[in-house]
């Protein structure tokens, strides 16, 4: 009898809970999410609701806006993939080795979260401008970073670095060293161990990290505008197009462009989550 009533009740509480009051804590969480996330999102949609579909379409397909999607997507893709490789390496070094200054590097990884992005943008622009520390050397081999689309990539690399590291690190720490030893004792090479034993376990975390880094880059504004040069059709990012519409007091058009970024980010997150659930199911048999 009791088991039947448990099945019917969707709000099943399992085991003894440390925090009391499931109803209260769920209520507070939902209220918070509604106030901080859902309500502003609804506001965004309401802003666009004054527009006809034709207006909406013409705003989001304006050639200059489309050019901004292209450069934003390309640079975000480049930055997040590069962060995937660098972040994986960084996480590996931080988890598997011990060396002086390890704690410091571990803490430094979070710096992009702590630093105001505008400060990051100004600093990067100073370093990479033709007279700056890096820019001077790069100019000699004919590479211009600041005031170029590449500058956008550099700014995105900086602001989204922590995502991959912080996603992969805990998974790597939890890896069972017994599996690796077993593989080695069965004659697997180091590369095979990495490819067949370690990588499948960290792969989902890595993908999530890359996706978050990509989404963060799509919306980045503060760091980019100081280093991009903001040339129409060349190095204008989508968040700048939104800012321009806000400056024109055209809230509807600004929200329309924002909704494109939002939908792209949400659907990517959604897809990655579905994929991750499936992958984990296959990896662990049942879940």
């Amino acid at each position, binding site marked *: 009898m009791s088991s039947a009533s448990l099945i019917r009740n969707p709000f099943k509480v399992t085991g003894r809970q440390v925090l009391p009051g499931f109803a209260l804590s769920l209520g507070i969480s939902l209220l918070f999410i509604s106030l901080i996330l859902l309500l502003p999102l609804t506001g965004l949609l309401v802003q666009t609701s004054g527009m006809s579909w034709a207006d909406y379409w013409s705003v989001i397909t304006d050639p200059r806006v489309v050019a901004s999607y292209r450069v934003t997507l390309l640079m975000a893709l480049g930055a997040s993939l590069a962060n995937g490789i660098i972040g994986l390496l960084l996480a590996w070094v931080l988890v598997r080795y011990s060396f002086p200054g390890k704690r410091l590097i571990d803490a430094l990884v979070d710096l992009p979260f702590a630093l105001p992005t505008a400060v990051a943008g100004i600093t990067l622009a100073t370093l990479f401008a033709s007279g700056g520390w890096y820019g001077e050397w790069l100019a000699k081999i004919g590479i211009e970073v600041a005031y170029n689309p590449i500058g956008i990539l550099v700014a995105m690399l900086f602001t989204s670095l922590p995502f991959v590291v912080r996603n992969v690190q805990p998974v790597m720490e939890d890896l069972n060293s017994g599996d690796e030893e077993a593989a080695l004792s069965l004659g697997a090479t180091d590369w095979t161990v990495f490819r067949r034993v370690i990588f499948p376990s960290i792969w989902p975390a890595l993908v999530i990290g890359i996706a978050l880094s990509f989404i963060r880059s799509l919306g980045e504004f503060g760091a980019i505008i*100081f280093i991009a040069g903001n040339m129409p059709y060349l190095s204008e990012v989508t968040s700048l197009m939104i800012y321009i519409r806000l400056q*024109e007091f055209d809230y509807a058009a600004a929200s329309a462009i924002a909704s494109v970024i939002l939908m792209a980010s949400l659907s990517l997150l959604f897809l990655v989550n579905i994929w991750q659930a499936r992958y984990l199911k296959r990896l662990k048999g049942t879940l």
Partner: protein
Amino acid sequence: MPFNLNKLKSRLALIGLSLTLGATPALAESSLLNSSYDIARELFASYNELFKEHWQEKTGETVEINQSHGGSSRQAQAIIQGLQADVVTFNQVTDINILHKRGNLLPEDWQQRLPNASSPYYSTMAFLVRKGNPKNIQNWDDLTREEVSLVIPNPKTSGNGRYSYLAALGFAQQTWGDDQEAIDSFMKGWLGQVAVFDTGGRGATNSFVERKMGDALLTFESEIQGIIKAFPEREFEIVVPKISFLAEFPVAVVDRYAKRNGNQELAQEYLEHLYSKEAQRLLAGFNYRVYDKEVSAEFADRFPELKLLGIKEIAGNWDKAMKEHFASGGKLDQLQRR
């Protein structure tokens, strides 16, 4: 001990009373909120001291003046959304117009309420060039030369950039008259020489001064003179073209909020005092051009004479200028299309 509601009530009332009494001295002093543009921090910090003295002499009251600074369009948005500023001191007429249009916070004819179209001081658009003016930039048509590269704030995001655009347009209209094709080709030409479109005036200054981008920076004459003073060792030079734009710095009382705050008289006096001799002298010291004849004669060597075109001569009025040139799909978008 039984719970005594009445005792609790009286205690709360006592606490409330003491809090009110404690706050009273601060309330006696009236306070005013001035919402202003980004680069006017130092200017109004000095002016507020001047005004406080003036107000105390006149009324015997002390007054507290609070400042809020930011991009002037963003400031206007904040006021429409409810920031209760008593007065605005902006660098764009359109940002005060929007306060009437979107929020009906002041009457449409606000520009007629104070002298010189409610603009106590003005400036114009000039060029900052590097030491010795190596590219020999003297006037607007030098900006279209192949080897010249420019830094300007984006006209889409900054009033400063819009002023440069209008100044260049005014030059083109004076030079080619009704020949729209020649005007368009000139405008396309100089816009094509822009290497960096920063989102705001200070960002553009940074790109030119710190990152050494470009051969000329187009910005307010007042900003340029400030830069030259701030970096004496870099030896920048100012070039004031023969023709340029009359950049107004409009001020207005935000009637609805000033009335609600009981600050009407104070707000009015705060703005009117900007026209006084001592305030005009202070403004000229901050490199702005002023209307007071005596004061401008004192500073004549700092402000070379030039032909100044207002918005009326170039585009009719601000609403028309915004719609025809800067709105999306407007002239600027067409000129920048690839």
